[in-house]
């Protein structure tokens, strides 16, 4: 559970404003009905349930929020967003929190999650489409090392036999617009 909540909290609106600016939604509209938490299929694996995370963001407890397991355990299933009576796009706010956390160089509490996403994006950027075999192998190597990759090779071979591994990647056309999209987005970050 939440390990390090301070005994008294002095609200700081700067983090709330940052989250509201980036998400385009009002965190302050939350009246703590807990509908998000009750519908969330991942609450059992979170250290801070979604409604509390929203409250902490509202109060400005940036470090607690950005260091939580919750932002990385969220599976983006969109149940909270669908059910929130106040129209808070909680799943998108989770995205914003993960983005801010990565941009600020915070070490993710579930460290493999951002490693997976950066590997996935690298494959997308290289080929225009994700090359699943390369992506899965690179991710396993980065997260579990050579030993981990060897351990997965049996599964890889099984999938290969079933025809589920595409060996050659797609190749982007020269001067593809996709390259510019990555360039522009990288600049805006």
């Amino acid at each position: 559970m939440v390990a390090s909540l301070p005994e008294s909290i002095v609200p700081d609106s700067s983090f709330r404003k940052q989250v509201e600016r980036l998400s385009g939604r009002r965190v302050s509209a939350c009246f703590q009905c807990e509908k998000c938490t009750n519908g969330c299929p991942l609450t059992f694996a979170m250290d801070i349930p979604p409604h509390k995370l929203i409250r902490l963001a509202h109060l400005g407890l940036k470090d607690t929020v950005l260091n939580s397991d919750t932002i990385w355990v969220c599976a983006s299933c969109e149940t909270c967003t669908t059910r929130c009576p106040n129209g808070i796009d909680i799943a998108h706010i989770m995205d914003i929190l993960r983005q801010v956390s990565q941009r600020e160089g915070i070490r993710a509490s579930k460290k493999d999650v951002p490693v997976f996403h950066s590997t996935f994006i690298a494959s997308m950027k290289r080929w225009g489409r994700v090359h699943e075999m390369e992506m899965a192998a690179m991710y396993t190597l980065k997260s579990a090392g050579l030993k981990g990759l060897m351990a997965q090779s049996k599964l890889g071979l099984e999938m290969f036999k079933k025809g589920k591994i595409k060996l050659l990647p797609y190749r982007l056309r020269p001067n593809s617009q996709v390259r510019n999209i990555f360039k522009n987005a990288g600049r805006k970050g």
Partner: protein
Amino acid sequence: MDVSYYPGCSLSGTARDYGESVEAVSGTLGVALKELPDWNCCGSSSAHVTNDELSVALAARNLEIADKIGKDVAVPCAMCYSRLKVAEKALLAGREIEGISHKYEGSIHVKHLVDFFWENVGEQAILEKVKKPLEGLNPVCYYGCLITRPPEITDAVNPEDPQSMDNILKTLGANVKNWSYKTDCCGGSLILTLPEIAHKLIQKLLDMSQEAGADCIVAACPMCHSNLDGWQKEISQETGRKYDIPIFYFTELMGLAFGDASVKKWLHRHGTDPIPFLHEKELL
């Protein structure tokens, strides 16, 4: 009937069974799938957790290609569908995206393939092609998260209780079971990063399908399918309960009912072998 087709990255790889069955049943139904030229990855779950601009721009480029062609787009993957719809709503709201100069005005529609088959192709056209009704099959239909959620993005009429896949399976003659887990999450986005958590979500769906009296689960998304189909051995080992539940793509069962000769080839690619089950049901 012509429709633009955005297959997504998995359909030529880990979801090859889905890709092959989509093409076969579309052919049978007289639907010409026109693959979008030079389409790119929709950004999937990785772009939207990393960079908002990137996630919208990648999907918007595909919409730009589709809009210039001018036909509706059918999308077999729930993730791709969701990302294209997010971009569609952003463009319609007037969001400017660097690198996307085309003015998108919403004259084409993006549809998930299961809705396209039910709403655009329709019951009568499907029924006419049924040679071998799926009698004795007791499936539950599993839609997962992103075909219907959030409804502001997907335009789903009934996001917690969708019907299109149920209707298709009923038209094929199956005895579709009702259950409350149609749109619960399978943990697909966590399967490689937090597998112990994802396994719990998968196990719950497998258990609940049994409780509903189903003998198989039908999916309409590459991630949902590979998640439910591919880890049953591991989950059996972890829990000491034996899981051997056939997981089908809805298009595979359409092919089966249409008497398609390639059905076995698709089913051989599954992690949990459904062929003995279909033999037992005298459907194969």
